[in-house]
C-alpha cells in the first residue's frame, strides 16, 4: 500500500494488512484474551493429587534407573521379535496396495470417477487413529499379532497413498504430455512418465513408514494387537517398573537402530 506523506514529499510503502479494519483487529485480540482467561478458570488443578503422583514418579524412576532385562527376558525377546515381524510384514504388503491407490488418487493421470473413489477410500482409511483401528481389528479377529499387522497395514496404506498421490499430482506435466504424445498406453505413461519422477520419493516414504510402523507396533500391544507393547503394559500393570524400564530401553534402542538404518539407506538411494 503506497502512503502519501506530506512533509518531505517521499512516498512510503507498507505491506497490506490481512484484516483491514483496526477495530476488527483489536476485537479479535480481545476475544482471544477473554478465551484464555475463561479457559484457564475451567481447568481444575488438584494439588493434593499432584503431590501424591510426584512420589509415584519417584518410585517409577527408581525402577527405570535399575532396569531388569533378565527376570522376564524371554517375554521381552519374544515381544521385540513379534514387533519387528509385524513391522516388516505390514510395511511390505502395504506398498502393493498403496501404489495403485495413490495412482488412482492423482487427478492428473486418472479420470474423475476413479479419482473420487480412490480419494474417498484414502479419506476413510486416514480418518481413524491407529489405536482405534487396532481396537476394531482386535474385536474382529481376537488378540494377537494378526490384528496388529492389519492395523499397521491399513494405517500405512492411508499414509503412503495420500503423500504419494500428492507427489504424483505435483510432477512435471510436460514429460507426461510427451510420453502420451508418442501413443503410449496408460500403463506405459505411468512407467515412463510418472514412476521415474516419484521413485526416489516413494522409496524414501516406504522406509520412513517402516520406521513409523515399528514405533506404532509398540503402542498396538497395549490394545492387545501383539508386539512388545503388550509386555510393557503387563509390566506396568504389575508395578514391575524395573522390567518396564528395560522394555523402554529396548524400544529406544530399536528405534535408534531403525532410524540409523533407514537414514543410511535413504542417503544411498536419493
Amino acid at each position: 500500500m503506497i502512503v502519501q506523506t506530506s512533509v518531505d514529499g517521499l512516498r512510503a510503502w507498507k505491506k497490506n494488512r490481512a484484516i483491514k479494519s483496526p477495530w476488527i483487529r483489536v476485537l479479535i485480540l480481545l476475544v482471544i484474551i477473554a478465551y484464555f482467561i475463561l479457559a484457564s478458570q475451567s481447568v481444575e488443578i488438584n494439588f493434593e493429587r499432584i503431590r501424591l503422583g510426584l512420589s509415584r514418579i519417584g518410585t517409577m524412576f527408581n525402577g527405570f534407573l535399575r532396569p531388569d532385562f533378565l527376570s522376564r527376558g524371554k517375554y521381552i525377546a519374544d515381544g521385540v521379535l513379534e514387533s519387528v515381524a509385524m513391522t516388516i510384514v505390514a510395511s511390505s504388503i502395504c506398498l502393493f496396495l498403496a501404489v495403485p491407490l495413490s495412482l488412482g488418487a492423482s487427478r492428473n493421470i486418472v479420470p474423475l470417477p476413479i479419482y473420487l473413489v480412490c480419494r474417498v477410500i484414502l479419506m476413510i482409511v486416514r480418518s481413524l487413529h491407529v489405536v482405534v483401528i487396532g481396537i476394531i481389528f482386535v474385536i474382529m479377529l481376537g488378540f494377537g499379532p494378526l490384528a496388529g499387522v492389519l492395523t499397521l497395514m491399513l494405517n500405512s496404506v492411508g499414509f503412503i497413498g495420500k503423500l504419494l498421490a500428492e507427489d504424483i499430482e505435483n510432477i512435471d506435466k510436460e514429460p507426461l504430455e510427451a510420453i502420451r504424445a508418442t501413443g503410449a498406453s496408460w500403463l506405459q505413461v505411468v512407467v515412463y512418465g510418472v514412476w521415474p519422477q516419484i521413485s526416489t520419493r516413494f522409496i524414501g516414504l516406504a522406509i520412513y513408514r517402516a520406521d513409523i510402523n515399528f514405533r506404532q507396533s509398540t503402542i498396538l500391544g497395549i490394545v492387545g494387537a501383539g508386539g512388545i507393547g503388550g509386555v510393557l503394559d503387563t509390566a506396568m500393570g504389575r508395578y514391575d517398573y524395573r522390567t518396564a524400564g528395560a522394555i523402554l530401553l529396548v524400544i529406544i534402542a530399536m528405534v535408534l537402530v531403525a532410524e540409523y538404518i533407514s537414514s543410511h539407506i535413504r542417503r544411498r538411494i536419493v
Partner: protein
Amino acid sequence: MVEKHMVSISNLVKKYPSGQEALKGVNLEVNANEILALIGPSGAGKSTLIRCVNRLVEPTSGKIIINGIDVCTLGYKALRMQRRKIGMIFQEYALVDRLTVMENVLSGQLGYTGTFKSIFRKFPPDVVDSAIKLLERVGLLDYVDSRADQLSGGQRQRVGIARALIQRPDLLLVDEPTASLDPKTARQIMRLIVELVIEYKLAVIINIHDVQLAQMFAQRIVGLRDGIVVYDGTPDQVDNSVLTEIYGEEDWDQGKKRHAQEEDDDEDDDIDQVE
C-alpha cells in the same frame, strides 16, 4: 472425397472450462512435406492449436483430418494408433529427467511396443539400432547412458528431436523449440529440425514467436491472433503491415539493421558437434 491435404483443420474451436476461448474457428491446411511456421503473440492459441492436433488438448468443436482420418472422433485405442504417426517436440524439452538419454529416445517407440516389453526395456533390435543412429545424427552418441538432467539445454532438445523422430512420424508438431535456448543454439536446433524434416520427408508445424527464425527456416508462415488465422503466406511476404496485423502496432524497423548484420556473421557456422 479424396483429401489432397495431409492435414486439414476446419472450424476448430477450443473453449477452456475457465471460459477463455483459445481458438475461435481456425481453418488451416497443411500439405505433405511442408514446413509451416505458426507465429503470433503469446496467448494467441498457438500451443492450443498444435495440442489439438494430437489431442493432448480436447477440441470443443470442429474437425481435424489427418491423412483422411478425423482425429477428433477417435476412441482411446485408435487415438493412440494415430498419435504414433505424429511426433512432437516441446519448448521445455519435456524429457523425463531421471531416465537416461537412451530411455528417453526409446520412449518414442512406446506406441509400437508391448507394455511388459517396454517395462523391462526390451525394445526390438532394429529400434535400438535406429535410436543409436539418431543419437549419432544429433551428435549425442557419447551421452547414451547419461541421465537427461545432466545435459545442457541444446543437448536436451536434441534428445527431444531424436525421441520424436524415432516414432517414424508423418507429421511433426513443434512447440516453441527455441524459446528456452540462447540465440546461437536456437538457430542450430532450428537448422537441425529442418534438415531432418527434409531428410525424413515430413510435414511439420512449428510454433515459434521469433519471426526472424520463422522467416529463415519455414516455407510458409501462418499468423494467429486471438484464436483466428490472420495471415497465411510465404516468409518474404511478411512485412511490417503483416506484423502489425498479427501482433499489433509497433515500430518494426527499429533494431532491424543490427539484426541484418548478425545474420552475415553467423552464416557460415554449421551444426556443431556437442563439446
